[in-house]
């Protein structure tokens, strides 16, 4: 996980018009943003589009980042905004086309994986959207409770509550799949 001090310096340099800093940010933050979109049950093609849209929006709004502030809440608040917009658009399209169900694209081939361990989409797919978002930020992006609260415009208490409920649900899911022993405290 990239530490914030480093990201903050890159962000400040990006605001000053430093192309190398901007390129470094794109290289370093794109994978985790892409993963954030993918685990929200969008197809790979949609995730690619969302990533591109997010960077364009970040570029337009880069002056709203305040040097010295943590980068990830700022970045994820924008990414979340783009995702919500995309969800609304997709919902409207689905309604217009009277399509009852949109299936996500099939996940990429696992390369002959024989291990029956859980995959990230399957794990998170069982959670409601708001819990999935919080768990993705906490566990996949490695953000703190405070950072997640800022990114989602909510309180730390609310984030804790969503995370706790998600743990409970995941515990049940993993036990059902035999991936956790029943005696695990």
């Amino acid at each position: 996980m990239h530490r914030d001090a480093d990201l903050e310096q890159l962000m400040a340099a990006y605001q000053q018009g430093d192309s190398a800093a901007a390129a470094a940010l794109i290289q370093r933050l794109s994978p985790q943003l892409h993963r954030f979109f993918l685990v929200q049950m969008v197809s790979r093609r949609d995730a690619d589009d969302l990533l591109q849209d997010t960077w364009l929006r970040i570029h337009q709004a880069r002056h709203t980042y305040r040097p010295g502030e943590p980068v990830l809440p700022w970045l994820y608040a924008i990414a979340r905004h783009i995702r919500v917009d995309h969800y609304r658009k997709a919902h409207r399209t689905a309604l217009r086309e009277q399509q009852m169900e949109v299936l996500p694209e099939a996940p990429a081939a696992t390369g002959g994986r024989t291990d029956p361990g859980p995959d990230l989409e399957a794990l998170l797919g069982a959670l409601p959207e708001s819990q999935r978002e919080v768990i993705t930020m906490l566990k996949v992006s490695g953000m703190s409770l405070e950072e997640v609260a800022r990114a989602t415009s909510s309180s730390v208490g609310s984030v804790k509550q969503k995370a706790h409920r998600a743990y409970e649900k995941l515990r049940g899911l993993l036990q059902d799949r035999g991936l956790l022993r029943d005696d695990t405290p």
Partner: protein
Amino acid sequence: MKPEDLDRIFARAGAEHHVEQQVEPELLRRISAAILPGLRPVRPMPSDRVIVAGLLLLTAAVGIAGASILGMYGIRKLSGFEAASIFVVVGLFAWLAASQSAAEMVPGSRRLVNPAVLVCTGILTLMAVFAALFGGNAGSYAMDGFVQQGVGCLRAGLMHALPAAGGTWLILRRGMAVNRTAAGIAAGTLAGLAGVTMLSLHCPNLRAIHVMAWHVAVVPVSAAAGALLARALTFRERSAARRS
């Protein structure tokens, strides 16, 4: 299940996911090509303190200027304690609304309070203060007078909320609201408080029922107008995006 167990499972699932779903280098090249050419320096937004101070000055200026033009009849009828009580509460409410407005315009800012909760709490607090201060001023009050005088006050309050809203937009326009409705509510609330400030200084009618109903009503009407305007702007932008 302990949190560490979940961490382990996520780390493993995440690592496998990472290998399977890496970002295409071509996509990164496209993003860089869209952003890097012509990259120019930008001036970061001023600090929250500067923005909040600007918004509070604007609110006070609109309220005081309006009352100066219409006449400071209300403040002359208030005792020192009454004036202090009203303006401390209005000031605190305005500070919260200004802080929230500033926070809404910077993605990932710490949110003090949900703007809808802020409006409701602020309105109830104002009504409680007015009831406590002017509860004894019941007197006889015909319904005709209540509505006629009240509508006049509401109209005057909203007329002062308009320039305050315009000024608030000028101060906040460089920001980016990820939740426009919330930003509209917060900014509308602040603009409404400029109207309440003006009415508190100007209106000599200190009957509790008049002040609680018509002066305070400027705030929710203004907040609702802010929310509706924000939604209308969002709708317009989305329609334009769909057409293009």
